[in-house]
Structures are given as structure tokens and as C-alpha cells.
């Protein structure tokens, strides 16, 4: 099982926390505010962060494990070796990217024969992966390395009420620690986190492969319906895959049945940036949204006056 692999194991160089940020496919295209908030905010908490260069698709483990495991491991290794060459660990915010890179890394570290096979494929590109690095989630970096107490001490809560959408892949560990990190970090950054019945339910992204109607109406819309009844200011996510699905579902539902979902969907890093006083315009918060975030900004500005 995945959690038998201790992602908090000792670093080769334990006093340094240096990361290559694996953006994934969605974030640079649809969530530039999240990318910018992460890149601006984490260094302020002492995290040494650079972009992972020459990145390819992660690729999606849920698809490629079924289709061809060798493709999954080769592409994932190609991403990981870029960070390894820079002497850095990999950090991902997207749950899907995290799971595919984490599980590929775990498998290759535990199975020398498999690593040898994959290096055979990588040799075609004159590259080699030693499987010597770690893969960490943004939540692990924030919770385990920065710490909730430090974040509380250096930030001021954004005066809003929110609900959470953790996403399926956040449940990779049996002890549910990533979901707990997400909840505790968000609680530290806003006035109130409101629970709801369908919080655990999938966004529907995976279902698009087989049935887009089901993905849109039986997953995304069901979640939207539950959220609209909560009288909250925003839905908080960290997963780019989930955002991709929600963003698409908002457009499809509006076009097909005139359904309006006007609740802003925001990234945890945006809350972190706002809470330490970063202006919304410094990370492009107003643009490329599924719904305007003006009400959140107004409450933040009012509180900062």
C-alpha cells in the first residue's frame, strides 16, 4: 500500500528543503492565479522552490496503468529525473499529478528490476533516473515543513466562509493525512469551513472518459447543488484535475440547461497569499475565473483597512 512508503523519510541533505514544482497540464492554462500564488508565497515561508523544467504530462496513472504500465513509468521517470538532476525533490499541487509521480517513484525505488527496465527506455533520450528523490504534495510541504502554527502566526484570516473539495487522490493514504492537512490549513486561513454531505464525492473528472453526461450531471452538478445550498463565499480546492472538471462542467451546464454556478472556486494558495497580505492583483486573482471573486476581495480589503 502507498502509505507503507514513508514520504517524510530523511532527505539526502536534511537541512535543505529544495523543490522542483511540477505544474501539470492544467494549472498554467486554467489556473495562473494558483501557480502565481504558490510561486510567490512558499518562498516567503522558507521553501526553496523552482519550476520543474522540461516537464511532460505526469501522465495520468488511472489511465496508463490500465493501458500500458511502461508508458506511465517512463513518462513519470522522465519528469522525476529532471528534478533529480537539479538535486531537488518534486512538489505537486494537483492530486492526480502527485499520485502518479509518487506511486511511480515508490514502485521504482522498491523494484530495481523495474527501474532497470525503465532506464532502458529512458536511454533512448540519453537520460537516466536513479530514483533518489522524494515526491511531495503541496499540503505536505505546507503542513509538515512550514507548519500550521507558523502560518497562523504570520497570517491574518480571510473573513470568509468556505467549503472544501479534497478530491479522490487526496485519500491515497490510509490514515487520511492529506485530507486532514487540507482541512487544518484551510481552517487556519478562513473564518469558517462548512462541511456538506457530498464533500467526499468525486468531481467527475475520471467519468469523462466513459460518460460525459454522467460526469457533468451526476457528479459535478450534484456537488454544485449541495454547495449552492450552503450560503458560503467559495469552494476551496488544491487539485488541478478537479478544477479542470468543475470549470468545464460550469460551462456545459450553463450552455445546456442555463444552470448558473456563481460560487468562486479558489485554490488554497490564494487564501495563503491573501492571508499574508499579498494583493489579489499581484497574483492575478481576478482573471480566468469560473465566477467573479470580487466579493471575496471586497471582504479581504474591508478587513485590511
Amino acid at each position, binding site marked *: 500500500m*502507498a502509505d507503507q512508503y514513508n514520504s517524510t523519510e530523511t532527505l539526502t541533505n536534511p537541512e535543505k528543503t529544495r523543490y522542483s514544482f511540477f505544474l501539470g497540464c492544467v494549472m498554467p492554462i486554467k489556473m495562473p492565479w494558483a501557480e502565481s500564488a504558490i510561486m510567490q508565497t512558499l518562498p516567503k515561508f522558507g521553501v526553496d522552490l523552482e519550476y520543474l523544467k522540461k516537464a511532460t504530462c505526469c501522465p495520468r496513472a488511472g489511465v496508463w496503468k*490500465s493501458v500500458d504500465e511502461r508508458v506511465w513509468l517512463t513518462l513519470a521517470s522522465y519528469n522525476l529525473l529532471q528534478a533529480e538532476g537539479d538535486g531537488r525533490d518534486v512538489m505537486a499541487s494537483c492530486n492526480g499529478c502527485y499520485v502518479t509521480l509518487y506511486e511511480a517513484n515508490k514502485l521504482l525505488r522498491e523494484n530495481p528490476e523495474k527501474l532497470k527496465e525503465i532506464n532502458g527506455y529512458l536511454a533512448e533520450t540519453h537520460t537516466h533516473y536513479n530514483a533518489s528523490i522524494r515526491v511531495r504534495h503541496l499540503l505536505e510541504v505546507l503542513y509538515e515543513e512550514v507548519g500550521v502554527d507558523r502560518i497562523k502566526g504570520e497570517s491574518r484570516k480571510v473573513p470568509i466562509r468556505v467549503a472544501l473539495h479534497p478530491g479522490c487522490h487526496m485519500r491515497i493514504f490510509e490514515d487520511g493525512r492529506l485530507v486532514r492537512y487540507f482541512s487544518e490549513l484551510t481552517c487556519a486561513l478562513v473564518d469558517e469551513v462548512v462541511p456538506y454531505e457530498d464533500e467526499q464525492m*468525486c468531481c467527475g473528472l475520471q467519468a469523462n472518459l466513459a460518460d460525459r453526461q454522467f460526469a457533468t450531471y451526476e457528479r459535478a452538478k450534484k456537488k454544485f447543488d449541495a454547495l449552492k445550498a450552503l450560503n458560503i463565499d467559495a469552494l476551496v480546492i488544491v487539485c488541478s484535475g478537479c478544477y479542470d472538471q468543475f470549470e468545464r462542467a460550469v460551462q456545459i451546464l450553463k450552455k445546456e440547461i442555463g444552470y448558473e454556478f456563481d460560487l468562486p472556486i479558489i485554490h488554497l494558495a490564494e487564501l495563503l497569499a491573501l492571508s499574508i497580505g499579498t494583493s489579489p492583483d499581484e497574483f492575478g486573482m481576478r482573471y480566468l475565473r469560473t465566477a467573479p471573486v470580487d466579493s471575496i476581495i471586497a471582504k479581504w480589503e474591508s478587513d485590511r483597512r
Partner: protein
Amino acid sequence: MESVHFKTPDLDPAPLNTKIILHNPDRCTGCRQCMTACSFKNFNTYNYDLSLCKVIRGPDNEFVRIHCHHCSDPMCLAACPVSAISKDLETGIVSVDKMRCIGCKACTWACPISVPQMQRGLKAMTKCDLCGGDPSCIKVCSARAIELVSREDNR
């Protein structure tokens, strides 16, 4: 013409190392990734109708997974008029011999949760065979809502 006699194998006692898929609704997110993995493994396409497992909403709005439990004493096997269904006494896997199956659906009616289904284009029944012992569905479940466990250890 020589007559053929089909015989139901003696299934008692159940072997001690058989594996079954156990579903935990408390962890399931209803993503149906298990269903897409199943349909791809068996039919090379992503099609919920072809998946040999199903994830649906239960009476309390929880996610319920319908899959073959590879019963110790399978009703499908007992109901089959042509002995097309067999249970491997070593692995516990219940499978359909599609060359023998006449597509009468007696197994579907006999199964308490109607697992066996008609294979599209073949006119023979099909059902989960645990992918021969290494189920594809379990590999893709990030939420760890399904796992392959020993039947005996989890009674």
C-alpha cells in the same frame, strides 16, 4: 450420440487462501475509476455498460459497489444448465466458459446481486474473474476503497 453428464463439483470445505474484493463505502468517492479500468482491461474501451463491476448510490446515498464475490457456494454455478460456470478450488475464482455458455441468463437470475451479464456481441455470459488474480480495478483506486483480501481473514 454419447450423452454428456455435467456435475457440480464438491465445494466444501472452502480453501483457505482465496481472495475476494472488499469495498469500503466510507472511503469510496464514486469516481468509477474501477469501472473504466475494468472495461478497458476486458474490452479495450472505456464503457460503463461493459464494466464487470458497478458503483451506484445506495439507499442512504452512500456509494455501493456491485461486484462478484466469488461465493463459497455459487448460486450461478448451481443454476447453470450446461455447467459452463466453474469455481477454481485453489484460487476461489468463479469463471464462465464462454464456449459452453448458451446465454440463457439463469446465472444472472440466480445470483443474489445479478452479477453475470451478457457479453455484447458474443451472446454468452461474462463476469469478473479477478483478472486472473491481479485485479485492474484495485490498481487504480486512489482512495483505497477496494482491496483484495483473504475471505477467511475477513469473515
